[in-house]
């Protein structure tokens, strides 16, 4: 099992004909993902990578039965593409595009409120269920199927932790990149809820960093819900220069741009095992295995 996606997930790609779209669709297909088509306005009816192209998401969903979409279009058009997919009723939406304007994300969030779509991203590496489905831009060479669930705010660091886990014989159920932007779709809490109900996930790794409120919300959820599976957290940026250009203290406190120390403290108090550095995650996970 896995969360959000599995081997049955039918994937379309918005922006499939671009350079990056072509590259990552091809990689996703080679990995064994069930890619069924692409969306490119004005190119409906043609084929690309031997898959049918459609003018709209609605059209693509009706003709292919797709339930997930990967948005890989340039930033000025990404907001619009996400809104289109949400309004068409897509189940899982993954956006890897970087630098989507925040006010465009405000419109995306408004569309999400009236839908059942789960948005992953933007500025996300995507979602990977090893051996089942890859929707995103992450490398897969080191991924192995298994029982560790990973939710992360950082792409390269996820790849690093995942590789270390695999080397230690700890495969992964699903890795979710919640994205590096302030305004994004699903967060740590939604991932934790899914991991809790996923029989194949035995332990969860959260990869956080300074800024935002993901870690604080995760800590509160773990504490309040009596989360039963072991959680290991790595929060990076302990030594990042603080307060630099982050706005007024009033804004900072309201937006909760918390320091790594504050986040680590809250997570620890919620019973989460803290990995001090990226090289300590596997050991923390192994600690749980011994205890079990």
């Amino acid at each position, binding site marked *: 099992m896995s969360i959000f996606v599995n081997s049955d997930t039918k994937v379309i790609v918005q922006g499939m004909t671009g350079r990056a779209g072509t*590259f*990552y669709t091809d990689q996703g297909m080679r990995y064994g993902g069930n890619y069924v088509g692409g969306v490119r306005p004005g190119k409906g009816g043609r084929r690309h990578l031997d898959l049918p192209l459609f003018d709209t998401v609605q059209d693509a969903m009706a003709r292919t039965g797709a339930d997930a979409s990967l948005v890989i279009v340039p*930033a000025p058009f990404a907001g619009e593409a996400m809104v289109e997919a949400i309004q068409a009723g897509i189940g899982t939406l993954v956006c890897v595009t*970087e*630098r*989507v*304007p*925040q*006010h*465009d*994300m*405000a*419109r995306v*969030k*408004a569309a999400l*409120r009236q839908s059942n779509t789960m948005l992953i991203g933007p500025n996300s590496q995507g979602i990977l269920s090893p051996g089942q489905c890859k929707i995103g*831009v*992450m*490398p897969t*060479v*080191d991924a192995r199927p298994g029982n560790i669930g990973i939710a992360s705010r*950082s*792409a*390269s*660091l*996820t*790849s*690093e932790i995942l*590789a270390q886990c695999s080397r230690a014989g700890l495969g992964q159920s699903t890795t979710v990149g919640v994205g*590096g932007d*302030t*305004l994004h779709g699903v967060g740590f809490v939604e991932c934790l809820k899914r991991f809790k109900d996923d029989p194949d996930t035995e332990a969860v790794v959260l990869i956080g*960093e*300074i800024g*935002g*409120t993901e870690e604080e919300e995760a800590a509160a959820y773990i504490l309040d819900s009596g989360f039963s599976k072991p959680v290991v957290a*790595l929060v*990076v*940026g*302990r*030594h*990042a*220069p603080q*307060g*630099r*250009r*982050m*706005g*007024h*203290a*009033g*804004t*900072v*406190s*309201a*937006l909760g741009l918390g320091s790594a120390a504050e986040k680590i403290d809250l997570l620890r108090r919620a019973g989460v095992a803290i990995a*001090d*550095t*990226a*090289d300590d995650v596997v050991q923390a996970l192994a600690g749980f295995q011994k205890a079990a």
Partner: protein
Amino acid sequence: MFLSEHQSKELLAQYDVPVPSGRLARSSEEAEARCAEISARKYVVKAQITAGGRGLAGGVKFAATPSAVAEEARKMLGSNLVTAQTSRSGEQVDAVSVEEALELEDNVFIAFVLDPSSGQVMLLGSAEGGVEFEQRSRMDPSTVKSLLLGPDSPETRAELTTFLSSIGILRDGPLDILFAARQAFVDNDMVLLEMNPFARTSAGNWVAVDAKITLDGSAMFRHPEFESLADKQGLSATEMEAQKNDINLVRMEGNIGVVVNGAGLGLATNDMVYDAGGTPANFMDIRTTATSFDIAKGVSLLLDQPKARVILLNVHGGGMTACDTVAEGISFAYSRSDRKLPVVARLAGQNAEWGIRILRDRKIPVEVFDTMSGAVSRAVELAS
């Protein structure tokens, strides 16, 4: 993208948000001359930098006469103002704003942001504005109230009135001004609009005495009108050069040049360097769209830093930025520089072995490690 106070106020004035009458000056003589253009009994001289926290750092001074204005301007201009929000070297003051000093009665803090969870426009307010607020709110965030504020309508007016009373504004609330500010926030792709203090003068008029705006750099493609502001961002020449090459680079104080792909891995690497007793010369994040030429440029910028004694290369290759791309970039940079700093490399992920082979083939003075901590300890050793 940060606007200076003067730029922020000019933008707000276009939306009929009242601001004090003020003039920009680039010399003390000009500052003195500008006083004649402002009808004021007393003046205030304000350093125009993009970072906040000026008041506590001596960047805001009151002056009774035009000659006192000239004296304050002379002290500020050309100096490096170090505030809680700048880097340790501060930001150079190239201009000051000379404004009418107002008699203020009510003082509040007002800000607009996008609420991260809902994406809606959020108004922040606190009963106590001004300079000291900075320290107070850091201790007690509960003094800051928030309201998700929709566009102007009878309902949102009622909500705003209730909100204002919660921060002590019980009568004649500046509703029109706040809706105008909200419009400016949305129209211009702002991610932060602060008015602190937002104040009522003894004459009963609400004025944005200070204003600070951050624009969304990702939205600048639809705002060519702000293009000319892009050069004055309080960034060093090095940092700006890096940005042009798809590399986020922040200069730091230490002697270990750090080359990393991805912000998270960059933060993780710097944490490990500090833990091992070293200090990074920089923070680096090679963006996924960077080519080997971009990376070469970023590495050259590090080789040009006299303090740097070693390059720590920590890359987890993935997708389109595979390890060989980074190795090519390093090799280009070294082929163009006389400074052959030792490289401590840890490459993993896509094409890691290929990347190492490139570094060795090009005769880069490289030591290769399997783990991040191994590479970090060696780099710290070489730097000390």
